[in-house]
């Protein structure tokens, strides 16, 4: 089981050159849990994730890991505890699956990048977990979108971090692959105790797979807690501006949002 960490965000204000996106967010990441950040486009959910993963330097506020500000921890050392899969990583031309996954070992290696037995073992295990061992010597170009995403997650797994940030890991994938990826991430969380924090677009999949949901709106944190507390018709209306009704998901029992548009609405719902 991975060790417990205290990852805390305090009064973070962050954004891009001339545009502040996040206006003061406080958050503690629950250890050994799957947390999902939800919100509409441009609400700052990706920016929050990027700031926590140190891709963006906050304008003010502090982010600490076990009480230590992130900036005070040497980058390689931090990268052995906190990993990141960005939204659109670059695939070098002609790279094989093993080479790509192996690059996740960078923070564990010495100056010369020599491979130890541990490195080989970690890569083999990551590929096993993501079920891509059979493609080990294939070119990434030969794989489907879902298989590619599994390769990228395996790269992040090879990094062997206790905390893993993922920025929209299921975007652009068919629904089958979305469920597959989320199942594999849940395996990882349950078996290894890896703390997972991700941004997801699909609110129903978020409600089903998350232990903890963080709802954001216009750069502020609106609500956080268990899916049953956060995914309610009032909060959905607040953060997405969408009228809906929330029913229990028949498969999982988690809350399920059923949107209400202007058409195809039964008479019993039109008044509300």
């Amino acid at each position, binding site marked *: 089981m991975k060790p417990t960490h205290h990852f805390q965000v305090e009064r973070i204000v962050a954004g891009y050159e001339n545009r502040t996106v996040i206006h003061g967010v406080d958050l503690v990441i629950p250890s050994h849990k799957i947390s999902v950040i939800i919100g509409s486009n441009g609400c700052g959910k990706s920016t929050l994730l*990027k700031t926590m*993963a*140190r*891709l963006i330097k906050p304008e003010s506020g502090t982010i600490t890991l076990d009480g230590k500000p992130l900036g005070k921890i*040497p*980058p*390689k*050392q*931090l*990268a*052995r505890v*906190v*990993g*990141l*899969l*960005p*939204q*659109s*990583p*670059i*695939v*070098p*031309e*002609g*790279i*094989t699956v093993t*080479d*790509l996954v192996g*690059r*996740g070992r*960078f*923070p564990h*290696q010495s*100056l*010369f*990048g020599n491979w130890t037995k541990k490195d080989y073992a970690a890569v083999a295990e990551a590929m096993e977990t993501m079920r891509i061992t059979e493609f080990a*010597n294939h070119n990434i170009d030969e794989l489907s979108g879902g298989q590619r995403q599994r390769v990228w997650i395996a*790269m*992040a797994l090879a*990094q062997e971090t206790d905390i893993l*940030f993922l920025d929209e890991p299921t975007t652009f994938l068919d629904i089958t692959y979305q469920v597959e990826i989320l199942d594999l991430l849940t395996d990882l969380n349950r078996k290894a105790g890896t703390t997972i924090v991700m941004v997801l677009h699909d609110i129903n999949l978020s409600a089903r797979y998350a232990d903890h949901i963080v709802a954001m709106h216009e750069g502020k944190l609106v609500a956080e807690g268990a899916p049953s507390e956060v995914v309610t018709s009032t909060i959905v209306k607040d953060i997405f501006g969408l009228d809906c009704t929330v029913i229990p998901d028949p498969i999982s029992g988690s809350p399920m949002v059923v949107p209400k548009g202007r058409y195809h609405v039964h008479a019993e719902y039109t008044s509300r």
Partner: protein
Amino acid sequence: MPKNFALVLAACIVLLVVCVLASLALGSKPLRFQEIMDGLFRSDVDSYSANIVRKRISRTVFSLCCGAALGVSGALMQAVTRNPIADPSILGVNMGASLFVVCGIAFWNISTANQYVWLALAGAALTAVFVFGIGSMGRGGATPIKLVLAGAATSAALGSLVTAIMIPRSYVMDQFRFWQVGSVGSASWGGIGTFVPFLAVGLLVGFLAAPALNALALGDDTATGLGVRTGALRFAAALAGVLLCGATTALAGPIGFIGLLSTHVIRLMIGPDLRFVIPMSAIAGAGILTIADVGGRLIGRPGELEVGVVTAFIGAPILIIVAMRSKVRSL
């Protein structure tokens, strides 16, 4: 380790040895086998032909050093810019180095290799910053095509300045004609001695940066997540690239396309892992430049064709092919 790596390494070393032997044996003056052997192994023989062979030894060593430097410089520049067409000549960097050296000779009477090197490095660094700055303007950042255009335009402008400075000064023209096209023919052991420390530092930084550059190849965000300080890494690797190509240009003039040719040949054979691509590019660059020099000597008989002309002839078509492909994909 990439598959076939041992095979590729063995083949490259054999080819390199063949290049070296060819460079010692072949030239504008045909020599007999015995004359070559005398020049190589018998220091007591002091004939005209033996001295030609001795001159070829230093020339060969120099072209190996220059080729290795240019190969690694190209690999580093490609990795730093994540751009498959980055190469000292395409980015205009060695023409910038050339211009500074020619200015030094023409205006400040600079004449020693030590002084050339520092001028060339300053010229190379300034040009690199300038071309990359122009190529990054506008939408999409430094795309391959924009960098090629900025580099080609800068290179043409700097090249015409070099010509403009040289033409009215016939003494400069005669002595340093190779600063327009690049040549390894004027190599001396003293020049090689000046060059070697820069080569050593550049190669060392290049080799040490390879694992981090491998992470950078996955994008800046991924690299940061893996614990790479991307800014510091880019600075160090770019500096090493400029050092290698600037020092080469100081002593040999602007030799083009070696960085592009060697890295693409190597990548085709062993894939994109920079821990192998960077050292192998040194070997490939050394071999390609040496064989191009031999070709120039044979084609240009009874004189010789400068090696910069030869590499441009081989390199230009390759550049076109790579640039066309990289519209679809970049590194």
